[in-house]
């Protein structure tokens, strides 16, 4: 489908006239060491690089620690009510399509109380940049388990461990027919800026899961990937069109196995292919040739989901980025089409479309 021109995000021509400081306001009140500080700095930087003016940007959040974020933005925005950010952002974007709309939620705001709006924003494919700051805990209410806390998680509201399974955000996004999913670690500024820019450039609902640490109530939840060294060992940066290699010297790769994917050490891990005529077991090691090439643009999300759900290594970067008609474009396109097809265009003309009689 050809994209309607009336509703593309305003894109800068050439370099941005804005710096990160132009998006920055006030003194954040998050706990020292909170992952939100890191994310906020990356968001300011990403916005400056994207170059949409602060007055053409709206940042809309719900309630929770991370939802305080709009107060630290020099853009337009709202810090609204618990769980409703996606719905409020939807109305804002449809009514004012020239705005670049960012929606910021935590795991409780976005996936528990706001779960319904999260899935429907994805299904509708409205052009929102949806940030999910996932620390797997309720911080503002002081330490209850969240819908992303693992089974058995001990918290103030689950002193004997939870007896329920968590959501996996990518799975929820894909299940709702989401077309964009990316992941970054809050402490990884370049990685975060990159996914934020990709999310902006994607037309439609784009979900960025930001792995973020809560120093007070869930410290260490993302330890495996929170440091640069950790990410080298335990994460893979996915890039569309590139081999899925990771490790200090790219000695690891992701290969397909059966209906799934797995990480293998190249030149060491291998598979039994069969026996030679002499009865000798023929052993073949995985080489770079076996490593999958990432395809974020593939409409079928099966392998993207497998990647998103890997526990080791943790997949970072843009996992899925598929073009599809956006809701807001289509709403305005339909209005234009109906305007062209119908003969009434104001209230007085509307009245005349009815059965009218005259009393003399």
């Amino acid at each position: 489908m050809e994209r309607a021109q009336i509703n593309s995000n305003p894109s800068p021509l050439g370099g941005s006239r804005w710096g990160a400081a132009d998006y920055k306001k006030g003194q954040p009140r998050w706990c020292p060491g909170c992952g939100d500080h890191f994310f906020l700095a990356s968001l300011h930087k990403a916005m400056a690089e994207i170059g949409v003016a602060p007055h053409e940007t709206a940042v809309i959040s719900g309630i929770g620690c991370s939802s305080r974020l709009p107060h630290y933005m020099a853009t337009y925005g709202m810090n609204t009510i618990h769980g409703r950010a996606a719905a409020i952002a939807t109305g804002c974007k449809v009514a004012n399509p020239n705005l670049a709309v960012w929606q910021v939620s935590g795991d409780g705001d976005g996936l528990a109380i706001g779960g319904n709006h999260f899935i429907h924003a994805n299904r509708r494919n409205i052009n929102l940049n949806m940030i999910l700051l996932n620390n797997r805990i309720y911080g503002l209410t002081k330490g209850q388990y969240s819908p992303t806390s693992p089974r058995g998680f001990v918290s103030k509201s689950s002193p004997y461990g939870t007896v329920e399974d968590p959501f996996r955000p990518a799975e929820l996004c894909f299940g709702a027919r989401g077309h964009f999913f990316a992941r970054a670690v809050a402490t990884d500024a370049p990685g975060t800026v990159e996914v934020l820019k990709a999310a902006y450039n994607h037309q439609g609902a784009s979900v960025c899961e930001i792995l973020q640490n809560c120093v007070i109530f869930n410290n260490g939840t993302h330890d495996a990937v929170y440091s640069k060294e950790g990410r080298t060992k335990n994460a893979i940066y996915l890039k569309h069109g590139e081999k899925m290699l990771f490790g200090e010297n790219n000695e690891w790769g992701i290969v397909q196995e059966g209906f799934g994917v797995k990480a293998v050490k190249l030149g060491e891990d291998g598979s039994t292919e069969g026996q030679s005529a002499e009865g000798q077991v023929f052993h073949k090691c995985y080489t770079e040739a076996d490593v999958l090439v990432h395809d974020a643009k593939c409409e079928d999300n099966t392998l993207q989901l497998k990647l998103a759900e890997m526990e080791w290594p943790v997949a970072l970067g843009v996992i899925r980025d598929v073009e599809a008609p956006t809701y807001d474009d289509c709403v305005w396109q339909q209005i234009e089409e109906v305007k062209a097809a119908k003969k009434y265009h104001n209230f007085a003309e509307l009245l005349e479309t009815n059965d009218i009689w005259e009393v003399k």
Partner: protein
Amino acid sequence: MEIKEKESVVVRFSGDSGDGMQLAGNIFSTVSATVGNSISTFPDYPADIRAPQGSLTGVSGFQVHIGAGQVYTPGDQCDVLVAMNAAALKTQYRFAKPDAAIIIDTDSFGPKDLEKAQFQTEDYLGEMGIDPDRVIACPLTTMVKDCLKDSGMDVKSISKCRNMFALGLVCWLFDRDLDIAFTFLREKFAKKPEVAEANIKVIQAGYDYGHNTHSSVANVYRVETKNKVPGRYMDITGNKATAYGFIAAAEKAGLKLFLGSYPITPATDVLHELSKHKSLGVITVQCEDEIAGCASAVGASYGGALAVTSTSGPGICLKSEAMNLAVIMELPLVVLDVQRGGPATGLPTKSEQTDLLQALFGRNGESPMPVVAAASPTDCFEMAYAASKIALEHMTPVILMTDAFVANGSGAFKLPDLKQYPAINPPYVPEELKGSWTPYMRNESGVRYWAVPGREGFEHILGGLEKDDKTGAISTNPENHDLMTRKRQAKIDAIPVPDLEVLGDKDDAELLIVGFGGTYGHLHAAMDELRAQGKKVALAHFRYINPLPKNTAEVLRRYPKVVVAEQNMGQLAGWLRMKIDGFVPMQYNEVKGQPFKVSELVEALSPLLTSPMGEEQ
């Protein structure tokens, strides 16, 4: 043949849901309105979508009240009942006056039809106690088939024209000019002229049948026209008028109209209506739930649109948190509550006024919100316009209350000239405040300025947390919260609303009837009837409920007796008692899910009044 001159006549068309009773009723009311009668209509739908054909639960009715002077209600009971089948006669006869004429299709009173309608014998008239002399019994189906046998139409299409035969009969009964009906049909079926012509043929056949067969037995009624207001008119339901009011207000204000909604009876027709008018730039979003309906509207309002969310009582429960967000963010929003029977799912297709206190108080915190209510189907237009104007000019969510009765009922709507309507001027932040502006800076009316995203230099963050009056930053300062609470209240209290009007014997009434919203017609008709008996009665009907009109206390204290009549347990009475020191009215309360009956009101109110000339009754 006797010709009865009547002030007003009520006709009720009834049949299976698929029998086209609404169309027949609509044409009849249009034909009558065209000659200058006043009209009021009300459809009565079954709760089931498609109950089995001929069954008691599948009957739908459409009542039309036509009058020489003003008619205010669709009428308590009908003078003519059209019953297209046995089930319709069985269920609808209770709406007929004792001397009503009954039109039935005898072809739909066979053994099976009678069994489905739970008649015990073949003497259905006897069972119902109906005098056969009052019945126009006509083999309607046979006659329609006969009339269209050369049309080439299939049996099903032919049978769909039965309603037009009934209409023809009724037109004969009321001496109506068929040409108007023919014009109506030719316009309605402009793309299917063969359908129009078939219908026209059947109407003529029905009319001729009446003329030839029954001219000796039945009355012909004549409703003359008085007090004609010249002009161009259309028939409009309350829900459609509400939608038109929003469209008109958006156009006047120069804003996009945004509706966020979720289907709910009896409000859904507003979503349907607005969804049609994309050529006017109307944006409608059918949301995932009621919450998102309101939340998306709040977002659209922030984005600079005239934002509306439409629902009924259960939806208000879900929207209340987002409504409150609009209160504290001081953003314009119109919340439409088409009231139905409650609590919970209650009576979804029936009408009540039981959400008033919910509208006034159903939110956490000190959360004042203007509340207005439409008095009739056509008044829905005026009040939707007024609600939008208040919301936009005072930067506040406004609740517009209608109910199932006015929403589904219709009346003759004199085409409004938008030029005659007051301007709508939202308080956009003046450009010269750039640099010094903060989000809660107010104009001389105490209203926060509106800075729509996209304007450079007015970037700001709103939110559900209390804000500092001066800086707009989050504040938990106790003095500031108290101040902001008072400013939000003062802003609502200062909204100018028209004075409360007193109708009837305003100078010397013994009794003042007080009501609000959709009961206006019934209360007015009851007052008229009491006054016709020589009694001194007045009516004060509220359309603006919060803030109350400035003269409210003065009006309510002016009369010796005051009765607040409402379709709830006394919610308006309670609100008035809260707002007016020492005011203790009498109450008339009914919660049946049905409109008031004028006769019952008259009966209840009469004992409160002395008879004319001081006689004891």
